């Protein structure tokens, strides 16, 4: 009797395992979604991979949606939105952008940064990595700084070879000011003066002034 039970269990496992494995292979993130949504998410992922885009940010968004108990339709829309932003980020950052830069670009687009803003930072950084300046740009925009002004200032700082730690500090300081009740654009205007002083003291190829009141609103 026990051998029959064992054989039945093995047979059952053999039948169900491939389906489970297929679900895992397709996305690694579809478990828990209804079948239609899971298939649709799988198509989004397949399309992103076929386009040479990183699938990680899409999978992460789906998992976050599931953790947050978002409706399946919202999760699918979120996956599609991330894929679209990754594609737009690659158009703006160029075909040689690595997955980290693409993810940073897609993240920035999600906070309100424009594709032009991505192009400006890319042009200023040359062949250097842009994940940190784009991350700070995203944070400034998310804090309420107008997208155009934030992009112009970050671009100018990157062009003047501002160290990553100073860019990060700028983003953190503006965020802290906003949490304390300050207006984001005003905070940026004040905080950037410190960087202006630092970069003026350093020997840099082009000591152009940072923009102060430019850019359009979101």
């Amino acid at each position: 009797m026990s051998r029959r039970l064992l054989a039945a269990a093995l047979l059952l496992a053999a039948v169900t395992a491939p389906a489970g494995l297929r679900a895992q292979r397709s996305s690694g993130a579809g478990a828990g979604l209804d079948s239609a949504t899971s298939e649709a998410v799988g198509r989004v992922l397949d399309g992103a991979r076929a386009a040479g885009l990183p699938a990680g940010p899409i999978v992460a968004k789906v998992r976050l949606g599931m953790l947050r108990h978002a409706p399946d339709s919202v999760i699918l829309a979120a996956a599609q939105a991330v894929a679209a932003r990754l594609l737009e980020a690659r158009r703006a950052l160029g075909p040689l952008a690595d997955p980290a830069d693409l993810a940073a670009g897609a993240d920035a687009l999600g906070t309100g940064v424009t594709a032009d803003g991505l192009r400006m930072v890319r042009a200023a950084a040359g062949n250097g990595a842009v994940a940190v300046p784009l991350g700070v740009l995203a944070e400034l925009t998310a804090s309420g700084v107008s997208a155009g002004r934030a992009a112009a200032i970050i671009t100018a700082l990157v062009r003047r070879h501002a160290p990553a730690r100073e860019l990060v500090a700028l983003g953190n300081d503006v965020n802290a000011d906003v949490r304390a009740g300050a207006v984001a654009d005003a905070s940026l205007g004040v905080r950037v003066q410190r960087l202006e002083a630092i970069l003026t003291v350093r020997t840099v190829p082009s000591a152009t002034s940072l923009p102060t009141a430019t850019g359009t609103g979101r």
Partner: protein
Amino acid sequence: MSEHEQELDATLARAITELRREPPARPDAVARAVEAARAASTVPEALAPASMARRRRRRTILAVAGIAAAACVAGYAARGMLEPGERAAPAAAGSASNGLVVQAANAGDDPAHLTWQFVFQSSRAHRVSLIGDFNGWDPTAAPLTRAAGSGLWSVTLPLTPGRHTYAFLVDDSSFVLDPRAPATRDADLGSKESVVIVGRP
């Protein structure tokens, strides 16, 4: 292995990790090391027997190594007293004490990643995980370890430079933001997550 021994091992492992980070030596320790080296070289080797010169160099090397090791331990102790969690008291505007201080990367680190520590405080939680875009929001990828005798949980992991969103998952069910970090609203889901920007010095 008893729970106490496991905690000791975790503490010891963390100590080893911190020591391997080679925190900056205290200036006075460096000065003592330089002075010791200078004093050791005041007697020209040509005037001393070769064996005495070798012994003298050996003592100098040992002294310098001992002072450097003491400086490293002192630096570790100082760093231990300035953990991000403790630094994350309510921050004054313009300070870097909001838990988002950029940490220096060591020469031995993977150049594409920076070591980052996350700290969570709860004396009632049974399990805490770190979830974020850097681990695909996977609740199993980065469990936090509770420090013995305290409500402080922590995990250290490598992060790529840039902006990251994250949260803590408490007891497999509660999605908790980091009170020491700014929050942002997800563009697609509308939910709130904590934010950290990681940058190389």
